[in-house]
């Protein structure tokens, strides 16, 4: 059904496995397929967690240069499509977890950054090599510093070092280094429960917006979001349980 990835849903977990020979590089076809999966997740999925991982010993080794023609006039359209795709993952109504084993490079690093959590094996490496290749590291320019601070982000994006999973964890770029991704995933899913999608989605949105919003606006946003959350069944059930316990 998909050319560049595999998709399955089981027990409330939807898994997108990037699957292209040569490191699961991001092609426009992959962007279209991830967007189609986002449609499906938004429209008909009952899953509460979305996992993104890579096949064949890599997470994602960056963008596929085969999509570019050096003799053609360059346009920005594909980069815009890719960022829109990232934003859609960032706004999915489910919790999102990136499982990294092997290379998370360039666009692969960007993809990991839009997920709520990142788990990696010690064999993983992270790098944003774009500046050394003469272009920009996508909206990692927007997201990376929020995880690691401006100083480290400048070093990682301007000098483009390969860093290990342990280093990435030390910088706050990933959440944990695990021996076994599936064991780590099960633990992460266990930690998320019980999963209240509206509360997750709104809290994540407020966090994503927190660096670009002044206090008065952030307070207004919080009150609007909190009103929505406390009007949901999940909070009303919490109140009923609390009353029962009295």
């Amino acid at each position, binding site marked *: 059904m998909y050319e560049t990835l595999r998709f399955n849903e089981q027990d409330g977990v939807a898994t997108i496995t990037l699957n292209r020979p040569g490191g699961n590089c991001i092609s426009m076809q992959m962007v279209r397929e991830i967007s189609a999966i986002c449609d499906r997740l*938004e429209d008909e999925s009952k899953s509460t967690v979305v996992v993104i991982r890579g096949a064949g010993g890599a997470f994602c080794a960056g963008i596929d240069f085969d999509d570019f023609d050096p003799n053609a006039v360059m346009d920005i359209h594909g980069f815009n499509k890719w960022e829109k795709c990232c934003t859609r993952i960032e*706004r999915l109504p489910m919790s999102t977890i990136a499982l990294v084993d092997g290379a998370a490079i360039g666009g692969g690093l960007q993809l990991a950054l839009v997920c709520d959590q990142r788990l990696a094996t010690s064999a993983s490496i992270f790098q944003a090599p774009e500046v050394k290749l003469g272009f920009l590291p996508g909206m990692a320019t927007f997201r990376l510093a929020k995880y690691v601070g401006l100083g480290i982000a400048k070093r990682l994006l301007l000098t483009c070092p390969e860093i290990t999973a342990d280093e990435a964890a030390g910088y706050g770029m990933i959440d944990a280094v695990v021996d076994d991704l599936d064991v780590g995933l099960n633990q992460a899913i266990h930690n998320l429960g019980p999963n209240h999608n509206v509360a997750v989605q709104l809290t994540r949105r407020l966090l994503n917006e927190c660096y670009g919003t002044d206090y008065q606006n952030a307070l*207004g946003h919080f009150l*609007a*979001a909190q*009103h929505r959350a406390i009007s949901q069944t999940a909070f009303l059930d919490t109140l009923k349980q609390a009353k029962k316990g009295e």
Partner: protein
Amino acid sequence: MLDTQPRLLSVGTANPPERYTQEEIAERFEIPDPRIRSLFRSAHIHTRHLYLPPVDQRGAPSETQGELLSKHLRGALEIGPQAVERCLAPLRLGVKDIDYLCCITTTGFMAPGLTAHIIKHMGFRPDCSRADIVGMGCNAGLNGLNPVSAWAKANPGKNALMLCIEVCSAAYVFDGSMRTAIVNSLFGDGSAAVLVRADPADDRRFAPRVLGFNSQIITEALGAMRYDWDEHHGKFSFFLDRDIPYVVGAHAELPVDRLLNAHGLKRRDIAHWVVHSGGKKVIDAIKYNVGITEHDVRHTTSVLRDFGNLSSGSFLFSYKRLLEEGKVRRGDYAVLMTMGPGSTIETALIRW
């Protein structure tokens, strides 16, 4: 096949000539209460166009209800015609080309209605059909656009004009209370006109078709926004419940999803959101309940910042800014959304 869907062919807006910063208004009326002064310092409204009255010895405005009604008509006959002319000029139409006029206002009551006054004042044809929508509040622009579009569809090739005129400075009580201060710090005066026509000859125009409407009334919040008689002050007075913005927000998904479902669309298919500039709280509530972004409501917030809440015509000011931005493309969908007394949420779907 001939396309007889009504289209929004042109929009024009107007405001009173005098524009005030919030600080200037607080100074003018010598507002001493620091809590009320802080309302006028909030960042989401910078300026408003108003027909401000003179002040008495105590720094308070002193207009009777009769004087307010006269001011409403006077203001309406200044800003209404300006909006009409600005709407018709790009189409090279004059008022004699208008076949149907619908006027909308909540800030003044009269019989005959505003349509009669506008027709006489501007020299419309005497056979111009007309309708007045009075007292429906901030949502009324879409309550008007619905029958105006239906009229246009039923009368292909004929010109229907909807004109929202709100002189909010003719609808206030000034008593130093928070209740009235919230209202007095929020609303501005403005008028907006939109020309609607269903004509296959317009097929090549870059103008959106009106595809449908959907409404949601929240009857349990009937009294939460109301403009009723205040016996003590001998004037009509507007009341806004503290929590109504959130209640409106909590119901906003319902009409939006019904509207989109009826056309086989999802929220992600909507390129533009034109939301009423009701106030910061209600804009936030719409954003976080419908799942739209600050960027989606950029014109809504900029209209609020520059004009305050213009009641029924507000959304057309945002719509005009959307057009002026020049980013709309053929095939784009937009949702228009207004909120007001009822309490109610009105929505419309349009497509370029």
